[in-house]
């Protein structure tokens, strides 16, 4: 047992746990942070794009020394069929601003840096220490944690659960239900190393500029999911993910999908001569607003992926993790300063504060999207094919007049899906987007 009693124990040193620990430690609270990995970031997986605004609110000068790879100046959105892609590219020199808005990062390095800042702020971090259980008093209030180390208990006024998507502590303690296969995606990712200059010439970049590609289509074999390719300084991150329930139903393997994606004619040349160095797999909570579990109780509070805070449509997760971590931290600091107990009633302030932020507003706006995508698989198979076919018909110069071509395109759409089906999809999509 650790004799010292803490104001707060934080489980996990990912973006959510770090944001919470940092916020509390800078306010002078005694914080103990426990991380099961060998070092922060050793087990963490992300694309990864860092959204600056969420981190700026925590560490305004993070650009001075955070390990950032490239700032994103170009976004490509692709729908792909087996041989081609139709894409929208947005590139702007506005993104070369002094304080860029989005960066690619490598989580292992980024988490280490963030953790250094957390410890400099005064929090005590113990790695290779897994929290196994929450400790409760006879009244059921959470009063501390048990760890997998000998003599492994520690006590605090509140336990902040930043344990990630598959947070077993919360599940085992009955704070939230087990993950449902249709609420969580399984994503795999590889790192491919290439010399800087090659990346810059291949993607038409100047120093530190970056490109990201987000893709959907037949690459997920009809399942609900997306793929991505991000440029780092000297490597490319590439990955693909689909709902766990879809993998089970379709007998597909994530690795098989990734292999096919890498060999797609639109992707393959981008990876030519690269050396693959790392293969990882991770879950992403994608249930959205409706899957958010209970977020607080007597002596405990949930932040980040553990609370299902991911906006799957925009692939935002770490920023929601940091924001929920910060706001949980601020709530705890406020209660502490007012000498209020860490009770369920008082912690309701956390939810009230969250409701005011983009986190809850965005998740609420998209609350119908997960169900929509789950029910409308044609988005991932049929439409990409139709778009590609249309583009091909339109662009091929073969002596056929344009009006006939237009008719052909229309016909292909009508054949692929009935007119009411087409209209219905558009309508339903618009409705769930609203």
């Amino acid at each position, binding site marked *: 047992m*650790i004799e*010292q009693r803490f104001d707060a124990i934080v489980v996990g040193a990912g973006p959510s746990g770090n944001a919470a620990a940092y916020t509390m430690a800078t306010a002078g609270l005694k914080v103990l942070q426990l991380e099961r990995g060998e070092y922060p970031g050793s087990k963490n997986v992300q694309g990864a794009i860092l959204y600056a605004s969420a981190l700026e609110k925590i560490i305004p000068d993070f650009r001075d020394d955070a390990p950032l790879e490239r700032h994103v100046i170009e976004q490509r959105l692709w729908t792909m069929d087996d041989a081609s892609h139709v894409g929208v590219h947005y590139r702007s020199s506005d993104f070369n601003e002094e304080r860029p808005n989005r960066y690619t990062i490598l989580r292992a390095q980024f988490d280490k840096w963030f953790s250094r800042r957390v410890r400099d702020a005064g929090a*005590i*971090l*113990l790695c*290779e*220490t897994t929290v196994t259980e929450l400790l409760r008093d006879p009244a059921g209030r959470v009063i501390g944690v048990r760890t997998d180390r*000998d*003599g492994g208990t520690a006590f605090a006024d509140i336990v902040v659960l930043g344990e990630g998507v598959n947070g077993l502590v919360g599940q085992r303690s009955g704070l939230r239900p087990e993950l449902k296969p249709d609420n969580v995606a399984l994503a795999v990712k590889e790192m491919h190393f290439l010399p800087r200059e090659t990346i810059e010439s291949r993607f038409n970049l100047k120093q530190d500029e970056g490109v990201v590609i987000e893709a959907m289509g037949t690459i997920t074999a009809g399942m609900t999911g997306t793929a991505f390719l991000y440029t780092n300084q000297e490597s490319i991150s590439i990955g693909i993910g689909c709902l766990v329930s879809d993998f089970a139903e379709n007998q597909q393997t994530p690795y098989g999908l990734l292999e096919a994606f890498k060999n797609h004619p639109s992707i393959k040349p981008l990876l030519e001569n690269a050396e693959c160095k790392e293969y990882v797999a991770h879950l992403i909570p994608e249930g959205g607003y409706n899957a958010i579990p209970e977020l607080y109780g007597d002596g405990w509070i949930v932040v980040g992926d553990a609370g299902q805070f991911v906006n799957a449509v925009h692939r935002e997760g770490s920023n929601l993790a940091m924001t929920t971590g910060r706001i949980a931290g601020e709530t705890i600091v406020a209660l502490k300063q007012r000498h209020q107990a860490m009770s369920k009633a008082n912690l309701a302030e956390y939810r009230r504060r969250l409701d005011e932020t983009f986190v809850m507003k965005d998740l609420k706006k998209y609350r119908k999207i997960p169900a929509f995508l789950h029910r409308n698989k044609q988005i991932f198979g049929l439409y990409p094919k139709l778009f590609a076919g249309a583009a091909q018909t339109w662009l091929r110069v073969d002596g056929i007049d344009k009006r006939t071509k237009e008719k052909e395109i229309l016909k292909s759409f009508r054949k692929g899906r009935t007119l009411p089906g087409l209209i219905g999809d558009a309508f339903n999509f618009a409705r769930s987007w609203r």
Partner: protein
Amino acid sequence: MHIVVCMKQVPDSAQIRVHPVTNTIMRQGVPTIINPYDLFALEEAMRLRDQFGGEVTVLTMGPPMAEDSLRKALTFGADRAVLLTDRTFAGSDTLATSFALASALSKIGEVFGPPSLVFTGKQTIDGDTAQVGPGIAKRLALHQLTYVARIVALDPDAATITVERRAEGGIQVLSTRLPALITMLEGVNEIRRGTLESAYRAACAEIVIWNAAAAGIGDLGKCGLRGSPTIVKKVFAPSPRAEKVQQLPTADLPAEAVAESVIREIFKRQPAIEGDLVRFSAGQ
């Protein structure tokens, strides 16, 4: 009983890459670990402490970031950590390293009490010399027990120790008087995980940090590059001997035809061999 364990932070050799173009070792981004052999020494030292009472001090010479390794040792359960760090130590060979460590050990003796036992690992995985332990023993006139596989008996009051030492051709059983220096063999024990308490103590602990002056080293000529007669003339990566594996079709072929096709492939890749063979058989 005071026991000091000398350890070194080394690059994790399992993860070192050689730059494909320049053939130099790429140290950047390679994680560092405690020299694996030193962990056997540390565990053995802690077992003696647990049995006979006393303290274990870990000592390392290295850059400031070697502090990470010391904290890890504290997490495992060491009681105190001393970091010897100074630019003048840069470029030390085994002679200069054993000088600096021996000086620091004397200082540790003055400040925290003289050690009855000093442990080191058998050797490091980055230098592989196995010279530093014996060098320290010689400088401090400690009885020297190298390649120890087992500590058979220790009597702190009589100040005697008996160990099994692995030698060529067998096991030697050696007894000597304390203070002694032991270099520990691998595989003799397993480092403990450390309790939650020790992990917490490690995170909060003040590491004792000494530069050359603080360690009482006056003669800087014996330190670092200046004190190192060893000169590294050249570093090179051996060129890989084997090319990629190639499979030749053998199905249904008679043995001679298979042999023929194998030899032909070899000659295609190594024309020199063909020439040698031709010359050889002509000579016959």
